């Protein structure tokens, strides 16, 4: 049972998160909360031309929301901005697919481990929290950013 939601990969990211902590300099920051469960996350995006140079983050919440942020960091750091938005879109599609979307490991990497979460409507928001914050921050960074240097 539990394996469907809490894949080993998710637990690994939760226990040993990648790239956690807020770093400077950054181009834009976004803070998102999930009022029903109190989860919150802050995401900072640093660009280098059209490359996502860094995604740094900090927050509190359940394993799903925290592991998801770690996966996000791993997948998007170093990628092209447009490519990052494509990955983001693919992850959102997977999460909103009620378990009926087949994830593409080439695009989503460790993100495929969240496929099972899509079957738990109450947890989809947790998985998406950091991605929504990233989307926000990245869009603003692209649009000129606030350049906190």
């Amino acid at each position: 049972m539990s394996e469907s939601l809490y894949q080993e990969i998710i637990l690994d990211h939760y226990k040993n998160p990648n790239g956690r902590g807020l770093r400077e300099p950054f181009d834009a920051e976004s803070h998102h909360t999930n009022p029903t469960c109190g989860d919150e996350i802050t995401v900072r995006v640093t660009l280098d031309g059209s490359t996502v140079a860094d995604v740094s983050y900090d927050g509190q919440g359940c394993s799903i929301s925290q592991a998801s942020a770690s996966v996000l960091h791993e997948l998007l750091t170093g990628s092209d901005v447009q490519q990052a938005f494509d990955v983001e879109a693919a992850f959102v599609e997977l999460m909103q697919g009620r378990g009926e979307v087949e994830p593409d490991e080439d695009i989503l990497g460790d993100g495929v481990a969240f496929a099972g979460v899509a079957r738990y409507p109450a947890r989809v928001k947790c998985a998406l929290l950091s991605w929504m914050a990233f989307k926000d921050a990245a869009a603003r960074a692209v649009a000129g950013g606030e350049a906190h240097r």
Partner: protein
Amino acid sequence: MVHQMASPLDVDRVRKDFPILERRLAGDRPLAYLDSANTSQKPRPVLDTIAEHYERHNANVARAVHQLGEEATAAYEGARDKIAAFIGAPSRDEVVFAKNASEALNLVAHTLASGLAEDPWYRLGPGDEIVITEMEHHSNIVPWQLVAQRTGATLRWFGLTDDGRLDLSTIDDVINARTKVVSFVHQSNIVGTINPVSRLVERAHDVGALVVVDGSQAVPHMPVDVTEAGADLYVFTGHKMCGPTGIGVLWGRREVLDALPPFLGGGEMIETVAMEGSTFAPVPHKFEAGTPPIAQAVGLGAAVDYLSGLGMDKVHEHERNITAYALERLRDVDGVTIIGPDTSTDRGGTVSFTVDRVHPHDVGQLLDEDGVAVRVGHHCARPVCLRYGIPATTRASFYLYTTSAEIDALIDGIERVKRFFW
């Protein structure tokens, strides 16, 4: 571990009355339903009564001279009689049906704020103070915040002590000559605390304030006599006491209900209507606009019969035993912190706790995989979480059908949670 616990109830037989308790969950797990403070399960007699009502007696009430209409009216008004008796209301006319406890609380708040009361005392305005507490359900916070915003009245509240009790050290300041309304929860839905109703009523009445008690978590679990409680208005909800969803109750002293202006306008609550103006029916109908939740009231009547048949004192005693057992076992679990009173004194069968380094969502999710249904989150009482500096809690809540084996399943589940996440 199998623990045999003495109970004044024949819990095995009681459980047979609740069809859902035999439900097998996904993966053929048995159900351990520890979420009764959220909503209770429904016994067979309640479901049968509702079905029979629709199949044999369905009609609108108070409007028809035909046989079905008379039967439906007798059933609906008969439910009012049952509920009046259940809470010791001096008069059946003091029992108003609402859709839930939230509507009942809003009815009181809205009518006091509307400015339509004949007696100016019943019109809130600037300078008036409304007193609530930090352990209220959102349904007893938000209506008063909105009312304060509309009327210019001031909202004040009692804080909490570290062990989950009301901090009444400042009672004579918080409740003072400017206080018009004191509204508080009888038993907390998040920390389980049973509040000292008489002490609050006494002080409130000393300064001439109206007392509203939110008994949503009290009436299902203990014998409640509204006149003994001493409140002016007392509210509860059907779905937490073996009744259907869609029905709540406002009891009020006749004099107070009479003084409040109408709330919702419409059919049934009127005396006579002309385009130029209308007059209103006497209570309780004054507050029951439109077709009431007829089958739901009838179902709640059956719930009250069911509970009375078992005896509310026995239900209460059973829950006390289960709660004592749960507290005892939880106290022994490494990494578990109980939020709220951790002894059985003045508390009901609702226990919130945290597990170190594991978010409540993860606790709840893993417990669900064992078939143990608990609630996680802020339980519509977020100020309590803020007060104790936690984002959320895991809450196990008990009822007349709860067994010690289910508590054991909870404890085993928590151990598994720790193995998984630690």
